[in-house]
Every structure is written in structure tokens, then in C-alpha cells.
């Protein structure tokens, strides 16, 4: 496979490229879904192909093909160069790439139980059983599913990289929906997007879906008769770690993507409220806030050995003691921004997509409080968890998030369950009100397998280490 990658790189150089790289990728994906006690969907997908990047002047070109022969690889390299030439006709500032050592290496994540080797019948039984349990406990629609990916990549560049990687990922989710007179309520486990990691089937076993199916169905039904989340302009808000993962992803992760900050996503995903001139001095949140982007965390969904430009995985400080100090970057964006080296955060969704800046594992470092301590320390507030809806503006500043479930907190105790809880805020003001942070025993590496970005669209797998947090003076209960 390296031979095809190298043939493509050579052809791109012969066609005038000053830099080229190629990535052969062989990926298998298996997904199963069950509904109301029956396995309803089973898809197995295999894709093999190669993507080639070429740089001419300051113009990039990318071409991909599923045809793996030496002749086709050479054609793909030449095509990438031809596209790069067209890019150069509407060109921007001179572009360099930050230096990176040209490694020859291999990497694979730890897997105890290969998810694609677990018998389909066993996986099907798990999903049909939990959906049956949810149905029996009051769900009108009970869904459960898993996904597993097995990816092998061979990367070669004109600078001499030759890196092989084998990455296995899997995870699962389930949810129970109940229909009321004029509304629907849903409970999901372990979160709206499930839980995923760079691990084997042991991850799914540890989730214990069977042990939680009855509870979430019953909670969904209880929500129908629960009171609405009160509308308050200012309240103390405790957010569970699953919703915090979404909060981090949307209001920190996307905001610190260097391509957004540079305006490369301006027309589509948007830009960022962050101004590069203020990196190192801008206050993003309270002193308790420490965020890193760390692709080396074992088992987290955003982990790898090397990114898709051959930069080795390494931890990057994003927010330190509340001050914004770092970004997610690649070799070209880092060079344009005047950074010394790439943050190693460039990945592609499949052989036929251009590598771009993606979150690795962007998450909070833990603090010292337990969730119970946060509740005990709150006189009058709201606790919310499990994301239900999300919306955020194109600068990643103004957000409104909804959760599946909430509880009133009165005099340090968890009170009535409430439905349709929502909260809204402005990034730095909201993060500035963070005053209690969950401890290491609450630290969960949430994995999100569906972060959309780019044109053509790419789906990214990102990790979000997260803990429950308390915020002061938050607006809750926004209604239509």
C-alpha cells in the first residue's frame, strides 16, 4: 500500500508540486440498530482508496480515487497537482508548512476484544433485549445501536514520512421516547450521542446498557407529567458531564479551531470570536477552567499516533487557569498564524476527504468537587443533564442548549424532576461564572462520533474529557 502512496506523491512532484502527500485508507464500518425489541438495521461497509494532496505555490489540490493500481495512483497524483494549479489562479498569501520530523513508524490503539469479531448474533441480542426492556417499561419508541470502525492507514509524504496506523473504535447508545398529548419526551443513555472510544467491544460491555434500560424508559414517562423548567434570568446551574462535553465541544472546541479563527470556514461553519492577537492574555473563563487538546489519552475517541499530516500526537494547552493560550492547528494554518509547530490536529474522514483541522480530545482537566458536593452547596438552582438540542452562533459565542432532564435544587438537595430544561449564555461570560468543578473520579472521556465540518461534509470523531460543573447567574427556561 505504501507503494501506491509513494507513486502518487512522485507523480504529483513530477507535475510541479513542491510538496505532496498521500494516504491509502482501508476502513470497515459496522452499524446495527434495534427498535422496539427487533434488530432493524445492520450495515457493513468497506471502503478502500487513496487521497493525494499537492501544493503548488500557495495553492492546494486534492484528488481521491477508489481505484488502487499504480497507474491510477500516478493519475491521482497528477490530478491533485492540476487542481492545485487552478487554486493558484485565485491565490492568497505565501504559504509555508511548519516543520515536522519525517518519521517512519507504526501505531495501533489497545483493543481487548475486537468489535467486528464479536458474533453478530450476540450484538443483536444485546440491542433487541435492551429495546424490549425499554418498551416494557413505558417507551413508545425504544432505539439502540452500536457502531464499530476498523481503520488502517498508510501515509507517505514528499518529505519522507512513512507511517502506518491501525485504529479500532466502537461505542453504543440507546434511547426511549414517549409520546404525550402534545409533546414527546426522550431519555438517552449514556448520552444523546452514546459513548464511543478508541477501544474494543469492552467499552460497550462496560456501559451496561441492560442495567440502565428500564430506568431511562421510566424517566422518559415521568417527564411527561413533570413541571416545565422554570424561566429565570439568573440562577445557579449545575450541568452533568455529558452535557458539559457538548458545551466544551461547541463553545470551546470549535472556537479554538485555527482554520475558523483564520476565516477559512467563514462562509459555512463560521468563524470564531477569538482574535489571535489576544492569545496568551484573553480571559476565556474563571481560574478553575483548564482545557487541553490531547490526542494521547488512552481509549479516548480523539486519540491517534499521528495526525493525517504525519505530526505525532501530543497534548496542547488550550485554556490555562482561565486564560486562552492555544489553538487546534495543522502545518499550513500554524505557519500562517506564526506558530512554531503544528498542533497535530489535522484529520480526514475517509480516503476521499481532505485532511482538515479537527478536535482531538478537547476537554476539561478535573477539579476538586463531587457532584453531590455541588448540589449540597447550592441553595436554589437547577441541575440539568443529557443534551437534547443545541444551537450556537457562527462565532461560537451565543449558545442555547436544551437537555433531556433536569431537577430543581432547593437548600442543597435535589428536588422535583423538571422537563424541557434549556439554558443560554455568551461563551466567556458563562465560563467566567464557573465556580465548582468535578473531581477526577467524575472525569469521563466522552466520545462524539458525529462532528460535522467542511465542504464536502466530513464527519469527525472527537473526544471530550468532562466533569460536572456549577455556573452562577445563568439564564434558564427560554421558551418559544
Amino acid at each position: 500500500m505504501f507503494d501506491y502512496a509513494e507513486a502518487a506523491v512522485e507523480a504529483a512532484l513530477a507535475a510541479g508540486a513542491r510538496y505532496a502527500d498521500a494516504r491509502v485508507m482501508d476502513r470497515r464500518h459496522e452499524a446495527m440498530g434495534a427498535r422496539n425489541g427487533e434488530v432493524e438495521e445492520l450495515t457493513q461497509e468497506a471502503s478502500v482508496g487513496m487521497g493525494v494532496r499537492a501544493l503548488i505555490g500557495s495553492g492546494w489540490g486534492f484528488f481521491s480515487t477508489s481505484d488502487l493500481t499504480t497507474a491510477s495512483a500516478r493519475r491521482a497524483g497528477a490530478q491533485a497537482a492540476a487542481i492545485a494549479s487552478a487554486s493558484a489562479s485565485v491565490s492568497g498569501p505565501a504559504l509555508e508548512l511548519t516543520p515536522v520530523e519525517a518519521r517512519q513508524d507504526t501505531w495501533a490503539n489497545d483493543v481487548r476484544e475486537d468489535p467486528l469479531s464479536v458474533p453478530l448474533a450476540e450484538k443483536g441480542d444485546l440491542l433487541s433485549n435492551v429495546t424490549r426492556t425499554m418498551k416494557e417499561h413505558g417507551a413508545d419508541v425504544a432505539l439502540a445501536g452500536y457502531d464499530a470502525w476498523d481503520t488502517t492507514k498508510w501515509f507517505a509524504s514528499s518529505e519522507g514520512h512513512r507511517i502506518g496506523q491501525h485504529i479500532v473504535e466502537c461505542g453504543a447508545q440507546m434511547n426511549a421516547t414517549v409520546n404525550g398529548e402534545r409533546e414527546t419526551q426522550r431519555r438517552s443513555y449514556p448520552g444523546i450521542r452514546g459513548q464511543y472510544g478508541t477501544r474494543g467491544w469492552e467499552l460497550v460491555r462496560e456501559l451496561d446498557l441492560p442495567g440502565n434500560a428500564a430506568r431511562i424508559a421510566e424517566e422518559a414517562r415521568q417527564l411527561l407529567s413533570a413541571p416545565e423548567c422554570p424561566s429565570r434570568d439568573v440562577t445557579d446551574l449545575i450541568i452533568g458531564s455529558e452535557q458539559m462535553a457538548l458545551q466544551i465541544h461547541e463553545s470551546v472546541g470549535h472556537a479554538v479551531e485555527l482554520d475558523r479563527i483564520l476565516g477559512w470556514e467563514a462562509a459555512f461553519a463560521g468563524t470564531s470570536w477569538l482574535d489571535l492577537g489576544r492569545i496568551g492574555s484573553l480571559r476565556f473563563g474563571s481560574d478553575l477552567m483548564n482545557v487541553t487538546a490531547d490526542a494521547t489519552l488512552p481509549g479516548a475517541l480523539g486519540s491517534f499516533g499521528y495526525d493525517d499530516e504525519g505530526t505525532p500526537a501530543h497534548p496542547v494547552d488550550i485554556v490555562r487557569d482561565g486564560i486562552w493560550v492555544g489553538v487546534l492547528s495543522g502545518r499550513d494554518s500554524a505557519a500562517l498564524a506564526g506558530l512554531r509547530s503544528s498542533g497535530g490536529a489535522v484529520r480526514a474522514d475517509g480516503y476521499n476527504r481532505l485532511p482538515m483541522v479537527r478536535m482531538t480530545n478537547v476537554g476539561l482537566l478535573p477539579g476538586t468537587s463531587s457532584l453531590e458536593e455541588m448540589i449540597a452547596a447550592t441553595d436554589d438552582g437547577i441541575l440539568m443533564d443529557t443534551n437534547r438540542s443545541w444551537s450556537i452562533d457562527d462565532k461560537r459565542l451565543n449558545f442555547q442548549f436544551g437537555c433531556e432532564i433536569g431537577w430543581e435544587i432547593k437548600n442543597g438537595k435535589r428536588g422535583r424532576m423538571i422537563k424541557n430544561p434549556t439554558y443560554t449564555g455568551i461563551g466567556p461570560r458563562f465560563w467566567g461564572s464557573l465556580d465548582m468543578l468535578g473531581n477526577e473520579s467524575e472525569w469521563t472521556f466522552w466520545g462524539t462520533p458525529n462532528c460535522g465540518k467542511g465542504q464536502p461534509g466530513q464527519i469527525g470523531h472527537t473526544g471530550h474529557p468532562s466533569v460536572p460543573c456549577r455556573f452562577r447567574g445563568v439564564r434558564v427556561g427560554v421558551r418559544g
Partner: protein
Amino acid sequence: MSDQLLDICERVLARAGTNVEAEVTITVGTDALTRFATSFIHQNVADAARRTHLRVALDGRVAESVGNQTDGDGIERLVRSAIEAAALRPIDPGWPGLAAPTSAPSVEHWDDATAQAEPAERAERIGAFVRAAGGLETAGFCSTAGETVAFGNTLGQRLVGRTTSAILDGIARTTTSDGSGHAASVRLADLDGDAVGSEATRRARESAEAGDLEPGRYEVLLSPSCVVNMLGFLAMHGFNARAVEEGRSFARIGEAQFDPSISLADDVAHPMAVGIPFDAEGTPKRRVELVKQGITSGLIHDRRTAKALGAESTGNAVSGAGPWGALPANLVMEGGSVSPEDLVGGVELGLLVTDFWYTRILDPRTQVVTGLTRNGVWLVEDGRIVRPVTNLRFTQSFLEALGPGNVRGVGSDLTLVGGATFGVGAHVAPSLHLASWNFTGGAKG
């Protein structure tokens, strides 16, 4: 091309054998997309794509398999994995069986020049867009795509269709505002970089130095891009028969759930449409009336929901849509007779909105959606645009907004909008003047 693809279909079906029901879809083509930002081309890609999708049923045990290799080994792996998976599955009581042989309408939204477009042709239009902005910063993309789709099943259904599409979409930016321009067509030749760039530039300049506006209920004048955004939610959570079957949908056939000025259909044969005239199950598409003068009059079906609800498939099965059900790919909302300029004249106190952004549904049944405005919003008083306003967040039931008595005007500016809300298809809609829209906050909170 079509003979080659049908030949691959035959080989896959032959390998699947006579003991199974099988359907195979093969898609080949080239997708190319050139992106620009800060006024230069920063990403430029092309993919010679090929996808083979096989679904088999062994005595009602169903499984799917997807691959991108069509040599002997690739076909062998594709068929074997589907059949092995099916054998392990329980019998699916909702399995509707395969589509019987029927011909599809002779609709072909195709243009050779677009299918073969060179990167330089996309770059040319982007160059024109950038020049039209007269020094304002610009960003966006120009895409061209051509795909040929072949379908075969073991009942003898054989279909081939092809479609091209081209989109030019971008923004121009002042230091305080963005403005957008959009164009989509079957033909790249229809896309005028200068015109689209000029529109974006005008919107950017005219929305510069915007002031805040107190949130609240206002009339709105929504562009076709906003209207198409709304249609995505109405389709996915409303007209989708799966949502009806599960009790999640608002749709009640025969009831006047919309204003009488609203008529909506799914219609691949519409002259402005792009796409092929059959679906992932080999069911030919036909015109499906969803709303007739305000009255909900039809649903979108695949074979599964058709069987469950005693209806016929409308040809809207989507490959890999799984539990989501069927989706329309060619919604067309009927246009009116009023120009967008004259629509402004009818607004007493309202907002003219260019685009929606990041719309997310809060409750499928009531169609309450939250989102933000983008790329230009203006306050209109007594029929005149008086000033630009900063972006606003809204939390609004789309159903209520289009409800009886709530539509004050339908524009004559029927427009094909590329890039549908849920990524399926491309829809056609006019501008709409609506009586009330609930803006719940400013972009600053």
C-alpha cells in the same frame, strides 16, 4: 456508462443467487468542490466516487452491505457479508419486499459540460465573485457534480438515472457584517460569479454598522434559503410517514394545517429540480402533493412505511437513512405573484432575513425550532427598509408560522436552493412574508 453499471448490477445479483431477495444500487461519478476564504482558494478537491449498496432479505431476514470495489473480490465480499449478516438476523416483520418492475419517469437533469467541468471553470467563477466584492473579504465555494445511478433487484427491476448539479455560494464581509449570494442549477453555465458576488456584496454593504433590535414578535420576510431550511424540518419530522407512524408528526391528512396560500409537493420532474427519478429501493418517483392550498394532503413513504400504513411508496427511500424513514429530495413550494421588492412593501413592522443558521428542533410535534439569522437582516417599517439590525436568535414553531392566516405574501421568486437541511436533495421555494416570528434574543444574548 449505464450498460457497464447495469452489468455490475447483474453480476452482484447473480452472485447473490436465487434464494434471496436482493437489490443493488451502484453510484459513480465525480464530485468536485472548490472553496475560497479570505478571498483566495484554500481548499480544492475532486473525488472519483464509486459506491455499491446491496440489501438482501433471506426469508425476511434483512441486512445491508456497502462497498466501493466492483472487481470480482469486491463483489464477493459485498455479497458474502450481506448474506452472512442476514442469516444471523431475526425475521423482520416490517420487511416490505422488493419493488416490482416498473419504469421510472423519463426525467434527466443532466448537462455534459457540468459533469466534465475542469477545476479552472470553478476557479473562474470564484475569481469573478472575488472581483465583484470590490475589495471586501469573501468566502464560499463552487461545486460541480455528475453522478450516474444504476439499480437492479431480483424481481427484475432495472433502472438507470443520472444528474448533474452546480452550486456557487459565498459571502462578502465588511468589518461589521456579512452578506451572502447563492446560485444553484443543473448547469454550471447558469452560475454567474459576478452576479452572485455582487448580490453578496450589496447585502454586506447594506447590513454594515447594524444596530441592535429589542427581541420580540415581528413580521418576517424570509428569503427562499430560509424557507427551504424550514421545509427540511417539516419533511423530516412531519410529512415523513415514519414520524406519523410513530406519533411524532403534526401531519393530519385533510386538515387545514397551513395557510391557504401554501402549496407544497415533492416533484422530481419540476424544471428547476436536480436528481434522479427513482429512489434507493428502485421505486419510481412521482409528484406527491403534501399541502394543497393549506390542507395537508399527503405523506412521504418508503416501502416500509407504505406497508405499515397501507399506502404506496412514493419513491422517497434514502439509502442508509435507517430509522429516520423516507425523505423528499425535490420539494417545491408553489410561488406567488408578488416580487420580493413588492413583498417588502406589504410589511408594517418586520424583519427581512437573508439566511438562517444552526437551526435545531426542540419539539418535533409542534415544530418548535431555535436558530439564528445570518448574512443580512433589516428592519422594515411601513413597507420600507429602514436599517440593518444585528443577528437575532429565534425560537419559533415552523408549523404555527405557516399556519392558517399567518402567511401574508408569497413571492414570485421561485429559487432552487442547493444544500438541503438534512443533506438530502435540493428544494425549490419562494420568499414568504409571515405575520409573526418569535425572536427570543440578540446575538449578544
